[in-house]
């Protein structure tokens, strides 16, 4: 468990303290995939680097499994960091070392593993990330996705309990992003590893995270289970991210809504109700005619969800809304 207790960070610039993270308290549970989403400069990079103290905190306590890491001595901190893997946007592999030597590097630094142990572990990890045949290549001979998989294997070398991902998919194309995210999800399930992932793409959060914190200007402005935050965003920044990830242009949407007649509802359904042929039966029962203004059916991690914006004309609107709510659909009246 990772607990932030009024943690803050500020930088001294020309004698003035510039806050990068305002006092923040939050808890990341063991074994969950926790996403931190925010624009560049929002402080998410600082937040993730506080977890292994690559950035020292300027206030507050950071408890990892009930130990305050801000009180660690330099040697204790180094020992602790071995239990926290980290992967990076630009991979940060050593270009002078082969793939196998890169994966072995953290184990060699730890100085507590025998050569045979290291060799065995490297083989096992490279097989896990499907790179066994590339063991003796240099990073420059690999594609971006392969480099990130080497990064993941390296981060797992010393059997960490926490994996920090700093924009790990931001430099990858959509297809590679998908495969890297799948790998992270699998690792989380197989090893029970806690993953903290920062990104500026809500889509990444939607695919792998259990919970998410949204950051803006050095503060966490919204936090909760991904389905809640994603389907019912409250803070304007969160809304921006959700719209962005769905490729919705707000102005276009406003125009569409103005052209539509009648009441406008936004329906949100999750889980099994996603697949039920609900709209037709509701329309028949209530005599309401509907047209779909926008809509999306997709998954949040493993849960299917749908979100539709409808305009409704005629019939009995109250009956329709009751029928929808009875079927576990969240109804929001837009107009």
């Amino acid at each position: 468990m990772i607990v932030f207790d009024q943690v803050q960070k500020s930088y001294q610039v020309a004698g003035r303290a510039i806050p990068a993270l305002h006092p923040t308290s939050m808890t990341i549970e063991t074994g969950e995939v926790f996403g931190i989403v925010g624009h560049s400069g929002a402080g998410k990079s600082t937040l993730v680097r506080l977890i292994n103290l690559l950035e020292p905190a300027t206030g507050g306590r950071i408890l990892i499994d009930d130990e305050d890491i801000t009180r660690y001595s330099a040697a204790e901190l180094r020992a602790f960091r071995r239990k926290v893997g980290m992967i990076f946007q630009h991979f940060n592999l050593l270009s002078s070392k082969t793939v196998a030597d890169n994966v072995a590097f953290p184990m060699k630094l730890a100085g507590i593993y025998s050569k045979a142990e290291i060799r065995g572990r490297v083989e096992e990890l490279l097989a896990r990330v499907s790179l066994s045949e590339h063991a003796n290549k240099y990073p420059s001979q690999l594609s971006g996705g392969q480099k990130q998989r080497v990064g993941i294997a390296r981060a797992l070398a010393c059997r960490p309990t926490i994996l920090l991902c700093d924009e790990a998919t931001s430099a990858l194309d959509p297809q590679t992003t998908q495969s890297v995210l799948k790998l992270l999800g699998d690792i989380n399930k197989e090893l029970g590893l806690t993953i903290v992932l920062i990104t500026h793409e809500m889509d990444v959060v939607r695919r792998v995270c259990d919970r998410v914190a949204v950051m803006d200007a050095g503060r966490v402005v919204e936090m909760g289970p991904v389905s809640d935050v994603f389907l019912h965003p409250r803070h304007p920044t969160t809304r921006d991210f959700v719209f962005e990830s769905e490729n919705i242009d707000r102005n276009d949407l406003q125009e569409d809504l103005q052209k539509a007649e009648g009441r406008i509802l936004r329906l949100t359904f999750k889980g099994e109700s996603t697949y039920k042929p609900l709209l037709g039966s509701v329309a028949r029962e209530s005599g309401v005619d509907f047209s779909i203004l926008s809509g999306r059916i997709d998954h949040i991690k493993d849960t299917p969800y749908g979100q539709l914006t409808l305009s409704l004309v005629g019939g009995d609107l109250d009956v329709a809304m009751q029928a929808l709510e009875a079927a576990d659909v969240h109804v929001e009246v837009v107009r």
Partner: protein
Amino acid sequence: MDALMETLMGNVDWLEIGWASWDTLVMVGMSLLFSVLIGLPIGVLLFLFGKRQLLEQPVAYAVLSFVVNVLRSVPFIILLIVMIPFTVLLIGTSLGVAGAIPPLVAGGAPFFARLVETSLREVDRGIIEATQAMGANVRQIILGALLPEALPGIIAGITVTAITLVSYAAMSGVIGGGGLGDLAIRFGYQRFQTDVMVITVALLVIFVQVLQMVGDRLVLYFSRK
């Protein structure tokens, strides 16, 4: 044919040229060795003490940087002369091959230190961060990550330093340093033996070309790109 050689290169004593070439090799080789041994740690310290680096030490950096700058700003011909008393103290003579080596190192080491500092700065900061995140201490970061990653740059620096030392070694002939430079000055310049001058210059050119070629090959090999 022999007559032609006699008129063109009548003054050239090939044995003397051979010995002088060997002396130049020894001077460059020895001074390069000590320049690297002294310059490398100074370069690493300059890097570590620098702004926003691992062991940021503004005062130590300023002092070290000042010393390096002073040695680098003295023209080498002056450094040769200024160093004479110190050289005599150190190895008993300021003449010949041995006498030339201390001033060569005094000129080469700070030059090489700056090149090391620059090539370390060019290592991606992300690599340092990743190594720190693995729990490495400063020594491990330097030996395990920084120096291997900067190796191509450092080898290029050794090549540039070696070539600079070839010209410095030739210059040391002015104060009786020995080698090809000494030959060029004593015979080519003072006795107007143009043929000797041409041969020594040609040999120096070949020497520099070979050094650059070997250096470039090594850089390519260690670049892994």
